[in-house]
């Protein structure tokens, strides 16, 4: 899926037109592979809990290798048959303004989806499709998760043309007033501009700063037992005695400490290198490009993902920086759209379609991208106002005091002085964290946008246009009312944001500002 070949091809558009003849089409036979692989995945997720049972009986099973072969062959044949049947029963029909999909072996389904309701078109290319250059098209709708439709195998060029066709139809039918402009720009819609791409170096940095090891931990989960067996055998074979290495009795405390430290460093090294590999797997050849009205993200080493998001659907921009990012001067920029009704809300953020992540960009790059997405926003020039220092006091009373008290009561029977010092240091430690947290909190607003800064060791910036607000809340407890403080909660389609302990007058001003703006500004949040 290179961008270089992304040109309007007459042959392809003719093919798209051929698709739209109103006949029921069948997929290419390569989709059998897709269906078979999918049923393997479905099977694996359904019977995941059986793995321990198999592992326990592993020794018994090992004695009868023939049974394993037969069972494995049977299962494989079942999957292939499932794949063939799924392929056989899959039909799709493309009309001028809608697509229909019939599928299912036992449970038949018939999806009828008008182009106008399609929110997002995703192209993905699993490894086994790359040989013949096929792609899957996933059509996300604004509505429920069940309505999600997928055309499983189309030639990649055709899929791209088809996507342009769908998106053009969707935008045309939405804005009738601008239909003439839309059709005039129809040619331009395919003219993508690449806004950003990530080099290998960026991905290594991303892997270092963002722990992506869970991708591996998840994939390796079934093999934990055998890995630990292997490790212990390995240590034995090289004559390494782990028990002696970590024994306190036989060595000096500094020696013991050094051993622990070196093992910790080794584990860190493994974790970090896995994390880097995870980042590369997910974001290999990352490009963020822009067409007339949407952003398209392409990345992936094994399975190539292509996610596109309409610019107007972006609810909030988040510039996230962990402490290591702060040191290296990198940020993770993400554009978030609505979460309600998104089918894959619990997927990892690499695949999530409600979030468009630009991994580990430099701050100037991030600011430029934000400027591109929302030109009138001025995050860079904002001077953030602090929240009230009573925020620290609340934390001291609600967290630090109970923790200190508990520690004190737990230890003081043994040693009063130790108890006092432990409780005091816990109190001071939590207090210090609260002060840092308070220092990070900040808010700012102009006529159109609201900006939030928050964080602890890292720092996150949020920026959203006020007209996208779904609901605003003024929150005040009787403990902060005498000090004219209040908290502001703003609900967006992508989630809620809370700013605590602001001056009450500011909260009122902001809410009035948001509501007044919605009286005048009738733009949709979508």
């Amino acid at each position, binding site marked *: 899926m290179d961008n270089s070949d992304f040109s309007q091809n007459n042959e392809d558009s003719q093919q798209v037109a051929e698709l739209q003849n109103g006949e029921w089409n069948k997929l290419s036979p390569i989709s059998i592979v897709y269906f078979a692989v999918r049923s393997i995945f479905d099977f694996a997720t359904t019977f995941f809990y059986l793995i321990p049972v198999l592992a326990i009986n592993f020794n018994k099973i090992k004695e009868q290798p023939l049974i394993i072969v037969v069972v494995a062959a049977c299962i494989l044949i079942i999957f292939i048959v499932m794949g063939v049947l799924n392929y056989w029963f899959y039909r799709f029909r493309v009309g001028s303004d809608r697509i229909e999909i019939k599928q299912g072996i036992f449970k038949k389904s018939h999806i009828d989806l008008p182009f106008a309701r399609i929110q997002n078109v995703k192209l993905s290319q699993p490894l086994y499709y790359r040989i013949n250059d096929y792609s899957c098209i996933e059509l996300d709708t604004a509505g429920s998760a069940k309505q999600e439709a997928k055309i499983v195998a189309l030639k990649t060029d055709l899929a791209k043309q088809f996507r342009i066709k769908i998106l053009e139809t969707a935008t045309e039918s939405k804005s009738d007033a601008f239909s003439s402009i839309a059709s005039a720009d129809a040619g331009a819609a395919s003219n993508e501009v690449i806004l950003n791409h990530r080099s290998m170096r960026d991905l290594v940095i991303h892997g270092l700063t963002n722990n992506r090891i869970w991708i591996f931990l998840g994939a390796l989960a079934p093999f934990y037992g055998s890995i630990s067996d292997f490790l212990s055998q390995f240590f034995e074979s090289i004559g390494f005695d782990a028990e002696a290495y970590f024994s306190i009795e036989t060595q000096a405390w500094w020696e013991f400490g050094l051993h622990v430290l070196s093992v910790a460093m080794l584990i860190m090294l493994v974790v970090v290198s896995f994390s880097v590999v995870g980042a590369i797997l997910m974001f290999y050849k990352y490009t963020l490009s822009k067409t007339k009205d949407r952003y398209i993200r392409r990345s992936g080493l094994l399975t190539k993902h292509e996610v596109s998001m309409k610019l107007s659907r972006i609810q909030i921009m988040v510039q996230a920086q962990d402490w290591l990012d702060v040191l290296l001067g990198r940020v993770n920029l993400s554009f978030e759209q609505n979460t309600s009704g998104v089918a894959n809300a619990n997927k990892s953020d690499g695949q999530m379609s409600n979030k468009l992540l630009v991994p580990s960009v430099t701050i100037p790059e991030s600011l430029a991208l934000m400027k591109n997405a929302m030109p009138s926003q001025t995050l860079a020039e904002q001077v953030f106002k602090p929240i009230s220092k009573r925020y620290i006091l609340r934390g001291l009373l609600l967290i630090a005091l109970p923790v200190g008290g508990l520690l004190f009561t737990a230890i003081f029977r043994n040693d009063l002085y130790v108890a006092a010092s432990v409780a005091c240091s816990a109190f001071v430690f939590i207090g210090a964290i609260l002060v840092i947290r308070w220092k990070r909190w900040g808010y700012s607003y102009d006529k159109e946008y609201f900006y939030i800064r928050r964080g602890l060791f890292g720092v996150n910036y949020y920026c959203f246009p006020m007209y996208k607000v779904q609901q605003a809340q003024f*929150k005040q407890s009787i403990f902060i009312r005498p000090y004219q403080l209040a908290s502001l909660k703003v609900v967006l389609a992508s989630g809620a944001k809370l700013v605590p302990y602001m001056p009450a007058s500011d909260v009122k001003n902001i809410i009035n500002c948001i509501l007044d703006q919605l009286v005048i500004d009738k733009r949709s949040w979508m």
Partner: protein
Amino acid sequence: MSIELRSNQQVELSGTCKVEDMVLHSLSPKYRSLNIIISLVIGFVMVAIILLLAIQPLFSMPQKYLDYYYIAVMAITFLTLWSVLHSYFADPKKKYAIREFDVHFQSGLLFSSTVSQPIMRIQHIEIERGPIERSAGLATLQVYSAGGANHAFEIPGLVYEKAIELRQFILNHKDVSQNG
């Protein structure tokens, strides 16, 4: 989006109504009594079941139950009283307001909050009536935005006719019919 709608600006500028100056309407007075009655009934039923189990002669309960059941009775009595007192003081604090372009609901005794819901962002409306609410002629108005079900805007304890009227006002609102 169009130019005609932008003239709304003047309407809002001439109207000086700020969120903090709004006139708030109280809920139906029946709402508080209903809540108190419900708390009392639930508490009474639970205490009655525990007591009956303890003193009934049909089958013998474990000794541990007989030793400690009075703690459960005390806890339930305390919680019931607490919720009665809370309803008594907190329910009158629940108020709502309707402006030309938004609806508001204020609540909370110790932790007060005012939720403001612009009518333009409303996705759908429900009127909910349980059997007890129905018998008292009350209804709860629920308003959903794209913020999700966790942030549903809710006005409880409305007289049914009032709730219908409110729903109709929102449904007829041009923000919902044209821009929603």
